């Protein structure tokens, strides 16, 4: 069931991420829904599920854009590991912690992806725009991550994947 829920949220998240517009004043940053899902699986599930989610989310993001295959898997995997590393220190269900992690992870993934793409000579974007996009990604990540967590937790509860009494992810 966990796999089915993961596939459902990843596919829907990918379609939404490709549909939602990028805010120009945030450097054209796209809402990092797929990254938020990777963070959710890092916080709420095992390392194996997180890795599987990072792999699938990365493949989807790369396939739905022009990013060379595997770049996003690598970045998402690193973000997932960072979240795994600190998840025991974070109070369960804390909005603020999710916002901070979401923002930091989105900024780091965006920056890392930019470095990889520049190194591969795959993108023509000025450093100033990349910086603005990184800040934009951080803002969107901070706003979206708690929301995505709540949606997936609610979905898992509806499908019996998570006990109703349990309040938050973890």
């Amino acid at each position, binding site marked *: 069931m966990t796999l089915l829920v993961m596939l459902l949220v990843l596919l829907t998240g990918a379609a939404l991420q490709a549909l939602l517009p990028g805010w120009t004043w945030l450097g054209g940053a796209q809402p990092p829904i797929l990254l938020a899902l990777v963070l959710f699986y890092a916080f709420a599930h095992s390392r194996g599920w997180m890795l599987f989610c990072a792999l699938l989310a990365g493949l989807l993001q790369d*396939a739905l854009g022009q990013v060379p295959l595997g770049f996003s898997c690598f970045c998402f995997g690193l973000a997932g590991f960072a979240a795994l590393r600190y998840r025991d220190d974070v109070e369960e269900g804390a909005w603020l912690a999710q916002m901070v992690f979401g923002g930091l992870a989105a900024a780091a993934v965006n920056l890392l992806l*930019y470095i990889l793409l520049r190194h591969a000579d795959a993108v023509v974007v000025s450093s100033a725009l990349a910086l603005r996009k990184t800040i934009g990604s951080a803002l969107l990540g901070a706003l979206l991550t708690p929301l995505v967590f709540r949606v997936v937790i609610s979905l898992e509860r509806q499908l019996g994947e998570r006990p109703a009494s349990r309040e938050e992810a973890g």
Partner: protein
Amino acid sequence: MRDRTLFVLILAGVVLLVILNLPEPVSGRLKGFVRDAVAPLQLLVVDISRQGQETIKLARGVSQLMSENQRQAGEIARLRLRLNELDKLEDETLKLRHLLEFRNRTPRRLIACDVLGRDASGWWQTLRLDKGANDSVHADMAVTTPEGLMGRVISATARTCDVLLISDPKCKISAMVSRSQAFGIVTGNGVTTQGQPVCRMEFINVDRRHPVQNGDEVVTSGLGGVFPKDLQIGRLENVKVNDSGLYAEAEVVIAADLGALDYVFVVAGLSPGAPSATAAGPAAEAGAP
């Protein structure tokens, strides 16, 4: 437990290394497979989003909708009349061309496409459309809207294609100013902070008798073999001419609404008469990410 964790980590590392080092054709096929698999879901999400927008519009005012329908009905009637006139003119032109032994140019076929989404990473200015090789859509076909040129197809799978928008810095178009016939290269220049996509046009060897001016209409030149001739790109702004008067550059305000997730048209069957790149038409109609 520790062994299992180690095994999972090694497995993940190996999978990642394999994915990163896949040969280009294999990774392209894999991407295409995922794209085609997700396309129906994307179409569903786009449909739901569109229906939501329509419902909101409907709620805002049925009367406004009715008057809009009336206006559109009038517009359709006017366009039908105009189309009839143009059909007659086209027949006449074709006959004349035949008589003059000009190359017989078949009218271009337009393939209507639905926009499925944008580049999911946000690093490129691309759109994904719901038509691909199964519908005879291939790379290097122009994509346009009634307002003007949008971009060109950079890759196509069986059921989808990706379009590089003209505002992307990797997109270059051989263009000309319709008033003065001055040739130049239009290059994507990203999006302004106000959200307006813009291009830059460079002119070399500007004819001093016909200088380019703000407000001039820019169209495709047809040179380069990718974009058909006379597709509107936009209008010139902030024209700057250097001291020698031979080199000029300007911003191009794009005519098409690149941000709208609406129907667009792929221009199929580029006329066989379109010449390849020449000295006058800079050979730089390129730009696949």
